[in-house]
């Protein structure tokens, strides 16, 4: 409300800098991502830059800077070093939050940066090969109980959501199965389709194509409520496993020590983005959930998420350092 008045005043006077309250970027904005070109964050950042340009939400261009390494630790440290810099933002994912919990050296947490907004929640589904004998998640879990340690799941590193889902189901069911880490998503899917592992946690858009081609079957979805694309597949709770799905998040952060107006400005840009048609189409194409939250909610989310993760990691026998 007051912002609007201010804006009106500025427009009327045509002299923006004099008031000095509103922040507007004046040179290209650097967008820090922790993956190399083609990685999840990199693609999201480039898609967002494209949409922001198309919707004219920013007067300047956005340039993606790939600061790879340490599972997000290098990018987070880079942002932390840019204290007070108002033309740099970063795209965070879940590893930015979990990494500092397990790695002594990854010492930049969300508390050391300025949270801006949460953008996306990525749901997941539990898939098996189409010719597998398991028709439901309970079938799989029972088979695992009868042959402890014999069944296998392919996934990412042990701190990834794939393993978190496994730990949670193991905990409530008492079943045990092996977890095999593969660095690339391609290898995880190849291991399942080749029959070398029995189950995997996969993104719905990816699974969708393999289901359509008759290669995969989905047993359950790691969501609170059913996804539009999978109306007949039960959620974890509906399948009889009382666990809270851990969301895979993507969001925006800024360096520490930037003025409150700047935080409000960036939050506003991404709020506007989340309401555009191009954003909605992007979410639908990728089967992402709209996870928009402002800065204050993101901090609250972070605390809850970290606590939940600490418990799960400890349960899994992984050393928690923070």
């Amino acid at each position, binding site marked *: 409300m007051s912002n609007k008045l201010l804006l009106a005043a500025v427009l009327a006077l045509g002299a923006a800098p004099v008031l000095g309250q509103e922040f507007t970027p004046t040179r290209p904005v650097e967008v820090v991502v922790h993956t*190399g*070109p*083609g*990685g999840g964050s*990199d*693609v999201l950042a*480039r*898609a967002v*830059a*494209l949409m922001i*340009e198309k919707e004219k939400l920013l007067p300047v261009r956005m340039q*993606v*800077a*790939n*600061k*790879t*390494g*340490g*599972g997000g*630790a*290098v990018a987070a*440290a880079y942002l932390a070093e840019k204290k007070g810099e108002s033309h740099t933002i970063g795209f965070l994912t879940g590893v930015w939050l979990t990494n500092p919990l*397990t*790695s*002594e*050296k*990854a010492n930049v947490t969300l508390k050391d940066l300025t949270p801006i907004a949460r953008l996306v929640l990525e749901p997941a589904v539990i898939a098996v090969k189409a010719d597998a004998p398991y028709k439901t998640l309970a079938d799989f879990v029972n088979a695992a109980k009868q042959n402890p*340690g014999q069944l*296998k799941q392919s996934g990412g*590193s*042990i701190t990834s959501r794939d393993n978190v889902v496994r730990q949670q189901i193991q905990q409530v069911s008492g079943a045990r199965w*092996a*977890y*095999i*880490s*593969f*660095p*690339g*998503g*391609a*290898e995880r*899917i*190849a*291991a399942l*389709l*080749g*029959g*070398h*592992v029995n189950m995997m946690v996969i993104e719905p*858009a*990816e699974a*969708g*194509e*393999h289901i*359509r*081609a008759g*290669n995969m079957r989905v047993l359950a979805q790691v969501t609170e409520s059913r996804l539009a694309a999978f109306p007949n597949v039960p959620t974890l709770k509906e399948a009889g496993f009382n666990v809270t799905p851990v969301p895979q998040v993507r969001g925006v952060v800024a360096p520490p020590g930037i003025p409150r107006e700047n935080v409000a400005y960036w939050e506003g840009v991404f709020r506007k983005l989340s309401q555009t048609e191009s954003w909605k189409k992007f979410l639908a*194409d*990728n089967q992402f959930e709209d996870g928009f939250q402002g800065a204050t909610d993101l901090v609250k989310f972070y605390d809850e998420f970290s606590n939940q993760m600490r418990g799960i990691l400890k349960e899994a026998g*992984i050393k928690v350092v923070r």
Partner: protein
Amino acid sequence: MDVLSGLIQGFAVALQPVNLLWCFLGVLLGTVVGVMPGLGPPATIAMLLPLTFLMSPAAAMIMLAGIYYGAKYGGSTTAILLNVPGESASVVTCLDGYQMARKGRAGPALGIAAIASFIAGTVGVLGLMLVAPPLARMALAFSSPEYFGLMALGLAMVVLLAGRSMVKALLAMLLGLWIAGIGTDLFSTTDRFTFGQLELLSGVDFIVVAIGVFALGEVLACMEPRTEAQALPVPRGLRNLLPTMQDLKDSRFAFANGSILGFLIGVLPGAGSTIASFISYGVEKAVSRRPEHFGKGAVEGVAAPEAANNSETGGALVPMLTLGIPGSSTTAILLAALVLWGFKPGPLFIPENPALFWGLVASMYVGNLMLLVLNLPLVPAFAQVLRTPAYILYPVIIGISIVGVYSASGSMLDLFLLAGFGLLGYLMRKLDYPAAPLILGLVLGGAMERALRQSLMMSEGSLSILVTRPISAVMLSLALLILLIPLFGKLNAWRLRALE
């Protein structure tokens, strides 16, 4: 005739003037990117993504793929002329390519590299066109134990890369394996040998080591004599700048070996073009009638790895297009591009988008031809680079190396590492340690360790999984055979002496 009608449909797309133009732009840009060390196809494609939204998907796919395979052509140029690998896959080309240049045969080396790239690039597309779906299903039979076998086979190649001393070669390889171990352990997320450096958490970038040991090490060693003359001899006359009939004859088998092995290894999502070129180089040397020429400027030592890393492109597109699973960072970003344009990559991609697939295939035939026509006339021009006096050329090589490494990562630590590995390369030359085994260990180390540990997780700790699965058993036996080659050589020499 599914293939024939598909191809006709494809050429109808690829030969539209506008698509021809995009194809040409793509391969031209690819060549430039390949020549420059550091900046690789994934970064280039990522930067061009916004532009592709203004184009039709077919045109965009044709252009981006052109960058991908065009870069493989360009990568050999600096490897042969300056001992600077333009991209990771051209490391193996340095071994004999640079030695050819030192003997005044830079022109023939560049020419053979271009011809090998053309033949293998075309074989790769043929493979993509004819056998993609069944081959992709076969590739799924490959899992961790099989990858371990493949990597062991690759590591056994060390006996073929050794110089005079096998012990020195093995020591260099161990050093490479150790460097591969630096970083965060995938399975336990523990840091290893990171010395408190945040940036080392993701390990040491292979290209930093390769450029340091090969390019900087060579420059340091060459600066010792303090000559003011030109660095390397370049004969006059166009005839001496192009491959001879004898060169082509010597490379016949290398073209075939590299093309086929490169394609097959490319299809596997967990391998890659560097491994493909190492293995085809090793195979070439193992079956050669004059293995003693390798490492000293054998023309087939350039033809085999260059062929392998070009047909690998066709192979790598197989799992990406038929299953939607990308095996390399470049195919990963091509896949991401398809999603951004609104396609659904996966098993049904080809049947549902035949025009796009066949247009891409046809454009790759055209693009490979363009690359040959583009690259062959440039050979004499590139060879003239070596006429530059040493006091200009060497600082330029150092500059290219530094800019190349920094442009890839933007990290100061990488520059210090580059300097360190340059010094290491120099010392290795002085002490007569071969550099290739170090690189081999570094390339294979990480993947091999992962494959072994994944296999043991699958078998609950039993090593028998490595020999009870047929593919991995065959690979391990082949590795053993290769390890025995020097022994056979010794036995043979002994037999000959006894006969005398």
